[in-house]
């Protein structure tokens, strides 16, 4: 178990190297001079050259890259061209907002998605099942920004039930609309995955055994079937959590949510390379870490899965 986790953590290193090379090359290709971004228009060529030398961007790309990696090893993500602040502090300011929103969305998709999926599977072909199938289809098809705007206009502008945008004082009412918008597509997917795996599991012999033991319907479904059906659902939710934590660009932009998605989006527009690269690295770290967590949850859900380097009993 310990070796497995260590191995997985060490795997992050090549991933980081690959990602940084890719991003460096991409940002290098863009014909934009960071020195021009920083200095006022009409700066003298001499001033521009001085700044380039100071920033080290007059050097060849591999020299710049090596410098960046050395800096990264110390945990320093560099300085933003645009804000002239350290990237670390910019991300530290915005990441928590994205993570909070992501968790709000995950809670919605887990509870509503799994429940809808179970009902749909247990009452196959009933009115409720048809309702779930139709609404999930609609949710998957609706563009996120359109749903977000619709909610803003309906519940915010017309009814004044909920604030239209921003984080305000950070109270729950500010979370509701962006969280629903962010969770919409995933909730539909979770419901569908739950329905299909649940139907699959319910046709297994051990479900018949459970009924033959005299168990009630609820205990067969919520104990014997659900634990088996959850495995693929957990995978999806885990990956989705990673995606959501990277900041949802559309949702955060529509709702003016001060999260990292919006920050990276603005940084791309402004060619603010250090913020883009730094933000992406953090994103990758979170993603890899969450995948590891999902794998560990697997071993808890399914005793047949043994993580390399130890038996499942060691858990």
């Amino acid at each position, binding site marked *: 178990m310990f070796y497995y986790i260590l191995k997985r953590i060490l795997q992050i290193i090549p991933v980081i190297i690959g990602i940084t090379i890719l991003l460096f090359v991409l940002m290098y290709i863009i014909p934009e001079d960071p020195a021009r971004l920083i200095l006022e228009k009409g700066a003298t060529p001499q001033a521009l050259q001085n700044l380039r030398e100071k920033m080290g961007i007059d050097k060849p790309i591999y020299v710049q890259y090596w410098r960046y990696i050395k800096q990264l090893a110390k945990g320093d993500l560099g300085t933003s061209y645009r804000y002239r602040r350290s990237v670390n502090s910019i991300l530290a300011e915005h990441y928590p907002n994205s993570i909070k929103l992501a968790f709000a969305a995950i809670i919605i998709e887990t509870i509503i998605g799994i429940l809808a999926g179970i009902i749909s599977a247990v009452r196959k072909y009933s009115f409720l099942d048809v309702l779930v199938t139709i609404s999930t289809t609609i949710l998957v098809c609706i563009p996120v920004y359109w749903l977000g705007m619709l909610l803003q206009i309906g519940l915010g502008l017309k009814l004044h039930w909920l604030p239209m945008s921003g984080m305000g004082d950070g109270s729950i009412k500010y979370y509701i609309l962006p969280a629903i918008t962010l969770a919409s597509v995933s909730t539909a997917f979770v419901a569908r995955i739950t329905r299909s795996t649940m139907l699959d599991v319910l046709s297994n*012999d*051990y479900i018949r055994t459970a009924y*033959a*033991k*005299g168990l009630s319907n609820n205990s067969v479904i919520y104990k014997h079937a659900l*634990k088996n059906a959850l495995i693929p659902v957990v995978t999806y939710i885990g990956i989705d959590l990673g995606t959501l934590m990277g900041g949802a660009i559309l949702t955060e932009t529509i709702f003016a949510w001060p999260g990292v998605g919006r920050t990276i989006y603005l940084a791309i527009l402004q060619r603010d390379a250090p913020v883009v690269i730094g933000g992406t690295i953090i994103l990758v770290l979170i993603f890899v870490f969450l995948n590891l967590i999902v794998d560990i949850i697997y071993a808890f859900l399914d005793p*047949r899965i043994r993580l390399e380097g130890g038996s499942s009993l060691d858990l």
Partner: protein
Amino acid sequence: MENNVSKSVVENILEVKNLRTYFYTDNGIVKAVDGVNFNLKKGETLGIVGETGSGKSITALTILGLITIPPGKIESGEIIFDGQDLLKLKINNLKHFRGNRISMIFQDPMTSLNPVFTIGNQLIESILTHQKISKKEAYQKALDLLDMVGISDKKRRMKSYPHEFSGGMRQRAMIAMAIANSPSILIADEPTTALDVTIQAQILELIDNLKNKTNSSVILITHDLGVIAKYASRVMVMYAGKPVEFASINDIFYNSIHPYTLGLIGSVSKLNEEKKERLKPIKGTPPSLIDLPKGCTFAPRCKYAIKICKESFPPSIEEESGHFAACFRAKEFLNKSLSRD
């Protein structure tokens, strides 16, 4: 087992009358069980024999109400247990019988246990579902049950998951679960089909011993005539959803009066026979349960078939005491005017 038969006044613990279980599929109505009648006496082992698809398992599943409805539907019949018709019970009442008064052991132990719960968890669950005792007592009881079914190293085995057990061990665990509440009836649906031959004998021996110890009755469903010969006292032979012959074990093997039973016996190899003969398989294949032939369902494969066989299905008649057969020519077999060849 012989003496069970000779004691004529043994009370019936289960009576199944005119049971019909159909499945309504897109291709038509599958008459999986079509008019099954039998009684189970206290303390006996009743064998149900037949080919795949003859309705043996569906009969058993219907008794416990484990048929999925729809597409299944119980068209008619009564299942009298303990003075009550199980078919008339609501599911909430029926579940008190399942695993408690009537238990079932399934065919494939590899898939019949839930892979994500420990053996101990599943065993204790069986006990606590029907008995109002503490968890600690249930744990102790579970250990005793593992002892009874011959699983050693009990405490460690309680914490094992099904995938850590061999096939034979899993079937032992299934049996432990089935007998957890000392049921009156144990239905064993091909309990050894998925197991090695050496393990088969052990498992059957175990079921037989437990039956004798607890004085329960067993319905043993199998397609293995050897197993039937060893463990059952009476046998019901099924073909295409219908019982074709029902008699004591001796009558079935030495005095059969139905061509299908004769065919089954003829297609089994015999070790002690003097002259070496080729096995005589029954020609043809069982009919589709959707499109049953008019008349006797076995007639198309029957070498004794006469005109009337193709026109109507013969009623099941008690040709001699306790010996039922559904064949127009059963009497001729009985008075030996027709050679059994």
